[in-house]
């Protein structure tokens, strides 16, 4: 693994980033990210309840890769994605895109990044305007970012993109409700690709679809990645999809990054105790009966984080140090990052 990724990905690198050739540098850098949500509470209350959704997460997404983010519901995957996309402001830390810091950028300054970064959501029904024809929906981002394009050029572009994701261009005159879930999701993908982005965030893009349709959508996503040299941030809870589709995987638990590894490495040699349990719980086609995953208790509340390692009260390897000291992400010999005292101490 090359040096730059270690600096960009390890928490130790918060603050300034080491100078590196722009081409080597990850396309997206998440550096010491913190996100707290303050919940209402009474203004006289000394301490208002705070959801600590993301707690010092650092990672780099390399050019051309499909970076997958996995972890249980509520661990902060969507929050991280929305901060990267500029839909939420971070509480602390920085987001860089192609070397430029983009968190906190306002409208006009943000516009070029807005074009280069697109998002696909879980529910294709809710994310497409039901009163707009597919044609209108697809034209809109194009006209916004390229106001000088002629009508003919716009039309050609829409057709091109529709064909490139395997959609029939004649769908343009129809409305979202006339399509199946998989077709709608392929329309959302087309919309994201209209403005030739470099980076696409897909938050559970296939979770709402049937297996027979999931494969269609994943194939389209893989084909377009190759054809357009796209970089993906792909969020999912389906680990068999990650295994098939991901270049590297980040595993999150309760707002922290436990492990970050090449996909093959993660599945062959998971190191963080949480990753191991998570992988063992994946259902697979097998005649072996389902077994309990050996994960005692419940996920603690993000309003009241455990001390030390956030996983310590459920972890089979926890010791006194784990409940006192926050483990930092450490780079292993093969480049995998693991934040676990037991792994560091060789007890893993």
């Amino acid at each position: 693994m090359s040096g730059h990724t270690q600096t960009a990905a390890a928490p130790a690198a918060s603050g300034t980033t080491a100078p590196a050739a722009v081409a080597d540098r990850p396309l997206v850098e998440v550096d010491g990210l913190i996100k707290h949500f303050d919940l209402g509470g009474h203004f006289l209350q000394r301490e208002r309840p705070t959801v600590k959704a993301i707690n010092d997460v650092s990672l780099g997404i390399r050019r051309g890769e499909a970076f997958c983010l996995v972890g249980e519901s509520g661990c902060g995957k969507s929050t991280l994605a929305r901060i990267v996309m500029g839909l939420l402001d971070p509480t602390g830390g920085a987001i860089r895109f192609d070397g430029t810091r983009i968190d906190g950028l306002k409208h006009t300054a943000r516009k070029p990044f807005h074009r280069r970064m697109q998002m696909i959501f879980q529910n294709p029904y809710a994310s497409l305007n039901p009163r707009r024809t597919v044609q209108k929906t697809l034209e809109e981002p194009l006209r916004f970012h390229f106001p000088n394009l002629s009508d003919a050029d716009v039309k050609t572009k829409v057709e091109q993109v529709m064909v490139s994701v395997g959609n029939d261009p004649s769908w343009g005159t129809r409305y979202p409700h006339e399509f199946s879930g998989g077709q709608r999701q392929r329309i959302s993908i087309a919309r994201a690709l209209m403005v030739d982005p470099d980076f696409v965030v897909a938050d559970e893009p296939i979770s709402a679809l049937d297996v027979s349709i999931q494969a269609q959508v994943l194939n389209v996503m893989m084909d377009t990645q190759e054809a357009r040299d796209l970089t993906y941030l792909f969020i999912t809870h389906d680990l068999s999809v990650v295994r098939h589709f991901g270049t590297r995987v980040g595993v999150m638990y309760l707002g922290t990054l436990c492990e970050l590894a090449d996909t093959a490495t993660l599945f062959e040699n998971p190191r963080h105790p949480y990753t191991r349990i998570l992988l063992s719980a994946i259902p697979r086609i097998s005649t072996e009966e389902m077994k309990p995953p050996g994960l005692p208790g419940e996920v603690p509340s993000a309003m009241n984080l455990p001390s030390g390692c956030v996983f310590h009260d459920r972890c089979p390897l926890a010791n006194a140090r784990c409940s006192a000291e926050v483990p930092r992400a450490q780079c292993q010999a093969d480049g995998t990052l693991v934040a676990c005292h037991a792994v560091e101490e060789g007890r893993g």
Partner: protein
Amino acid sequence: MPLLDVRDLRVEFPTRHGVLTALHDVSFSVDKGERLGIVGESGAGKSVAAFAILNLLSRPGRITGGRILFEDRDLATLSRADMRAIRGDRISMIFQDPMMTLNPVLTIGTQMVETLKAHRDISDAEARRIAIQRLGEVKIPSPEKRMASYPHELSGGMRQRVVIAIALLTEPALIIADEPTTALDVTIQAEIMSLMLDLCRTHGVGLILITHDLAVVSQVTQRVVVLYAGRVVESGQTARVVQNPVHPYTRGLLSALPGEGEPGARLNQIRGSMPPLTAIPPGCAFHPRCDYAEERCRVGVPPLDVIEDHNVRCTRARELIRGVAA
């Protein structure tokens, strides 16, 4: 004799656009203590089958053919009152959303005690004792204390475990679980499914597990029924069906799963999508999506053939099973 024997079940929904047939001649059975999976994609008719068994079809749905034999009675012909006595007593249901079962304004304890007393002539104290025992069986920590909790005070996984405890209260002969873990994380899914497996075994309860997840079905059930557009297209021993699927739809589903092939390779997709009930094609309903379709697939609906130990509804099943179909 099986515990539950569903024969040639037909369910229709009369609508403004004509009568929609949601289930055509669906047959399956569950033996005492047996675990059966019903799989199929969204709209295939899985929930309609469950609701038909329990006489809970939403209007205007109705059973227009077939029999549902359960413990010597045909549930399809029972009065609403007789059915109510069976539901929640001899047959329990678990839904995807635990709040379909739980009342948000009552404590867990109150709900459990009331449920039991509705079906059994027992004292409050006895009902409480049984409730606490069931909560313990589903691994709820400090069950006595949890009796006083409201549903909103529990996590999603915990709520679903309480629902399972409620389903077990009356020691039913059959539990029908409709996507019980679809909304939950994989670790919680594994926890709950292995728990259900255990409980079904120790209590000798039959289980119908409805899901779209073939992997879960393969690790939990003994037999499986694959539904497509309201018809059984394949059924048999789960291990046989997942290892040697015959129907092109079952084959397609299994080979579309990521994790089967080489990472990064194109997945074997099934083209198109399942038709809505209003537009079921003639002949084999799967033929427009099928790589093996021939002219004769477009004409008559193929019968459900018994081939070796499989039931398969496919014109070309015999060629497929011998591996000679191109």
